[in-house]
């Protein structure tokens, strides 16, 4: 096909305005960040009104709603990954809050409000100081604590089992170390939906 000549010609070409209206994704290099700005202080206000009910006053998370702040270790028995100890990019906060939060009314915040809550959540995590103002310039420059904590190349296969068929292990080593028997975590799997199981 000749470049510039569509083969089928179905559909229309969206206008730049139409593209801008939907193209809300934000990248680590700042691409996609809108004009506007928001301070930690402004963020505190929005956060208390719109976020704290679920995520807790200090980002500790209410009920099973996600914890937003935490600096605990990522090793050991039950690490709790959060913005502070896990998220590699501050821009992701803008992207996500802007598209998906507050949970019951996504896209209801202005760009300023989103910048402000991002600043606030970063500050809750001690990633930025109280004077921080988030905008399209400052956010990409924020260096997140776990910035280098990820391997973006899939190292699998990381197991290399053989399909052994006979005498593959010593029978006496076959030992049950954990069982679901007796645990009361399983909802009913017959009859109508189990609505009695606690959240």
């Amino acid at each position, binding site marked *: *096909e000749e470049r*510039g000549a*569509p083969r*089928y010609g*179905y*559909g229309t*070409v*969206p206008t730049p305005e139409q593209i801008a209206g*939907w*193209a*809300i*994704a934000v*990248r680590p290099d700042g691409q996609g960040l809108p004009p506007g700005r928001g301070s930690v202080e402004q963020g505190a206000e929005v956060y208390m009104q719109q976020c704290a009910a679920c995520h807790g006053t200090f980002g500790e998370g209410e009920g*099973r709603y*996600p914890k937003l702040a935490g600096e605990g270790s*990522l*090793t050991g028995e039950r*690490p709790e*990954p959060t913005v502070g100890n*896990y998220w*590699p990019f501050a821009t*992701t*906060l803008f*992207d996500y809050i802007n*598209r*998906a939060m507050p*949970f019951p009314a*996504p*896209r209801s915040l202005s760009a300023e409000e989103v910048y402000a809550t991002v600043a606030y959540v970063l500050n809750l995590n001690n990633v930025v100081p109280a004077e921080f103002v988030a905008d399209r310039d400052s956010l990409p420059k924020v260096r997140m604590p776990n910035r280098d*904590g*990820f391997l*973006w190349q*899939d190292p*699998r296969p990381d*197991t290399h*089992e053989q*399909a*052994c*068929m*006979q*005498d593959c292990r010593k*029978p006496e080593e*076959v*030992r*049950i170390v*954990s*069982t*679901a*028997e007796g*645990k009361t*975590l*399983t*909802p*009913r*799997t017959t009859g*109508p*939906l*189990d609505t009695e*199981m606690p*959240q």
Partner: protein
Amino acid sequence: AGSALLAGRGLRAEEVASPPAEAPYSLSLGPGVVDRVYGQPSRFEAGVIRRNVPWLTASPETSISFTPLQHQQGIITPSGVFFERYHAGRPTVDPSEHRLMIHGLVDRPLLLTMEDLRRFPSVSRIHFIECPANGGMEWRGAQLNSLQFTHGMIGCAEWTGVKLSTLLEETGLTRGAKWVLAEGADGAHMNRSIPLEKCLDDCLVVYGQNGEALRPEQGYPVRLLIPGWQGNVNVKWLRRLEIGNQPWFTREETSKYTELMPDGRARGFTWPLYAKSVITFPCPEMPAKGPGIYEIRGFAWSGLGKVAQVDVSLDGGVNWQRARLQEPVLPKALTRFTLEWRWDGRPALLQSRAVDETGFVQPTLAALRRVRGTNPIYNKNAIQTWQVKADGTVFNVQLA
């Protein structure tokens, strides 16, 4: 006249259908055609439903329900019970208003109606979709005594749609194009970065599921299908594809769908679902009933291609037998396996082990834990062990 036959009407339930009686429905007319213009399962199957684990998530709008695999009869998951995963509930999309926009590093941005989309060359493929969190509650220990809840974040369907490569040939790609951002029209505006190479390989933009329009639960009117890759990238209610030169590192590919390793570092962009299998009969929901011959049944699958072989162990992995695979064996699709089992009534530890066409062997949970610890949440494709007790009951257990 005919009183001996009609006597059936007076018999006890256990006897009515047994000859020589006639059941009432054999002695009368039932509802005629178009009594139900869109049919339903028998009311006697009312227990075959999606189910959820309420304690798993904060609210049902961002949660998951599980396919009742213990009832699944073939490789096709009935659309009525195909697992559902929402991040902001299920949008009710009017297809006449829905649009798919493709833009970014393209020669010609494109805005498509559903009618436009359906006009492109179409293909149908049978593929599974599995959430990488399937079984993720079991990393630290056996928790749920149920096949539905340990393995039900999966479904397999015949999908129909357009090759993503067809759409990207239509828009043309400009220099530097390397990644595609897919975005949904739901309240979560779910977004994921996908390497262009995969998009041009076997990805589809699908509007059909098991012969009819996609179900709302699976993204009506249109979703992405990224064969063999983690469920979350198969963006539902798809409204936008942006072509770029680098990934977006969205919340779903950093905060979520990354695996925390024992050293505190995490793996990201671990998309393919590696070979996996599970025995669906017997299982906790479907116990054995006394000694005798049974058919062990199960599913195997691999996000890297076809299942090549499935082995079954009755003794917790000491000895294995080759299971029979059911044709057709399709790439990145559920594959049925069966094995005759003459059960003497003694306790048994049943396991199945899939090997895919790349030669990858499904690992034991111990092997997986040795490398990955117990914190990854995702990509737990370990061998499942079902403990069969002498009374035939079945329990979800983990072995040393």
